[in-house]
């Protein structure tokens, strides 16, 4: 069993690696993501954090299965609702939290914040705050892979709401006509902000939109880490072997509100409860126990993950802020270029 305290201190590449072959490591990571977001929510409530945040509780299985299938040399564009994805892909809770808290140790030195966590070592681009903006960028990364003849894959992760924006349509069309090695992964969590999908989108099965581009599609229960991983394996494998893009729709559910302030009063009665029955963390735990794991040991794992997270929060809160002149860092101009070289 992976040691949490240790995994927290590992490199992001190492934190990624453990997921591929170890179902317990995957569950552990799901504990970590869920625990991280619960604590983050509490921190926001105390006013310790500036700005906004978007939780992905209920969507952990998708993040972990994607991470289990990708190589660190692949490239991912994700969204503002990206902490789960970042942790799954390998970023440490400390790096993610430091960024969210605007600390100089954060992944962009605290300059980007909650909506822009990133880690170049594992191919996670600064997450995208503009709906749909990551899709063309992923297609472009895939173009670079195809161009260079390397077998890396790009993955664009986006929501159901994003399938209504022009960038979605244009990117799928471009990827299809050029047979780019990209997976379009739609995390259909039923809501775009405060609007249920049926209010904004005339169809609920978004994978059907692949037909407009003669593109293969998959639909999968995104609350089931095993099934999701299998679907992603097919799509990623197709991309890696020259078969072109796939649209994967994962049916998930957003347990939290859209962002910090939202208590989701707009949910139909019983809907949350229906989906909580299908809680991906719960299901992954049950699956392991059914396969022979000790429920007690898993419970201990969960609490050790929690304890490690509590420690991370202590540490990160004490980290220094950036200095004010840091806002001038990393802005490229023809003149800075000369200074750099």
């Amino acid at each position: 069993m992976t040691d949490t305290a240790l995994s927290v201190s590992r490199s992001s590449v190492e934190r990624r690696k453990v997921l591929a072959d170890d179902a317990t490591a995957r569950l552990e990571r799901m504990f970590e993501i869920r625990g991280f977001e619960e604590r983050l929510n509490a921190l926001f409530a105390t006013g310790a954090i500036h700005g906004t945040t978007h939780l992905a509780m209920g969507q952990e299985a998708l993040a972990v299965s994607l991470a289990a299938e990708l190589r660190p040399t692949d490239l991912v564009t994700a969204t503002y609702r990206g902490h789960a994805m970042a942790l799954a892909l390998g970023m440490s809770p400390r790096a993610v939290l430091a960024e969210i808290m605007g600390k100089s140790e954060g992944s962009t030195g605290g300059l980007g914040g909650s909506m822009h966590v990133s880690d170049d070592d594992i191919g996670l681009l600064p997450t995208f705050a503009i709906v749909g903006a990551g899709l063309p960028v992923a297609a472009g990364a895939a173009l670079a892979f195809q161009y260079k003849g390397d077998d890396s894959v790009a993955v664009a992760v986006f929501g159901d709401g994003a399938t209504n924006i022009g960038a979605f349509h244009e990117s799928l069309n471009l990827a299809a006509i050029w047979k780019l090695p990209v997976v379009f992964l739609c995390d259909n969590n039923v809501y775009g902000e405060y609007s249920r999908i049926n209010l904004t989108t005339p169809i609920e099965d978004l994978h059907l939109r692949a037909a407009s581009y003669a593109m293969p599609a998959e639909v999968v229960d995104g609350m089931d880490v095993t099934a999701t991983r299998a679907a992603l394996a097919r799509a990623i494998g197709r991309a890696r072997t020259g078969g072109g893009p796939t649209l994967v729709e994962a049916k998930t559910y957003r347990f939290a509100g859209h962002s910090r302030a939202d208590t989701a009063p707009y949910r139909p009665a019983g809907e949350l409860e229906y989906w909580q029955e299908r809680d991906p963390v719960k299901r992954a735990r049950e699956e392991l126990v059914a396969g022979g794991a000790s429920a007690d040991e898993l419970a201990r794992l969960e609490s050790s993950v929690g304890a490690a997270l509590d420690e991370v929060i202590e540490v990160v809160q004490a980290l220094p802020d950036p200095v004010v002149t840091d806002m001038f860092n990393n802005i490229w101009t023809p003149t800075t270029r000369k200074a750099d070289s």
Partner: protein
Amino acid sequence: MRFRQAIVAALEDEMEADPSVMVMGEDIAVAGGPFKTSEGLLDKFGPNRVRDTPISEMAFTGAGVGAAIAGLRPVIEIMFMEFLGVALDQLVTGAAKMHYLSKGQLSVPLTVRASVGSGTGFGSQHSQTLENWVTATPGLTVVTMSTPQNAYGILRAAIQSPGPTMVLEPRNLYAVRGEVQRGAAGLVELGKAEVVRQGTAVTIVTMGQLRTSVLEAVEASGIDAEIIDLITLAPWDRTTVLDSVAKTHRLVVVEEAPESGGWGSEIVAAVTRELFSSLSAAPFRITTPNVPVPYSRALESRYLPQPDEIARQLTQYQSTGTVPAPWWVLEGLSK
């Protein structure tokens, strides 16, 4: 009431007065708006007039153009100004030229509201003001707001106006409280700047969320400044500004826009052109630095010119007649 409630009040009063006024945007109906700037409108006016849209800025901005041409007075909400980056075409290349391209037959009484600016911890892709995207566009009126009262009056005037109007709403002000006079007396005339404070020593032109900071700075420094809130940025009120500088012989623009490319240069250049020989010191701008809006609170709070920084620059300018360096130059950073 709060600034955001003044927005609601303006929408409500216009919708009461004119059945062709309707509002559309993301989550503005059932949820009352991401910033609660349309709270209660759905209940009051129903789903035909208050519409939640899909995440499709190009479609609903363009739909606003078409609906305006066909007889409605749509009010579109662009949640963050940045999102116009996927739909700017409809406004600048489309709506603004429709009257021109139809020999005046078609009008586009469209209002596009967008929240702008820094100070709320949303990071570099949700904190810009981006006035420059829309200001070099003959045919498009661009306004901003700075108090609950003028938020009410400007928005109503924008909705009433027969041409397309872009309304920039400083997001950081939504929670601010103030008295609001509703009805005709609360209206604001578009195209006219507001003299916020009369003075003789220097003219300060500002707008949006910096109006309050400028007032604070002026009070703190004891300088007898004339403060002008531009309100309409395009076309801006040359008469009010020129009359003031003709009297004070000095001009400072305080703006939430980067040193390079900010709107204040237009004011400085026009004033210099007209009043050069009567100026007693160089006109200059107090701006944000040339950087993306930083996230960390420690940095974001310095990004926007703060009252103490404004006061420092003003005081030096008034006492020496020379242009002060911005804080980042003092801290060793070149421009």
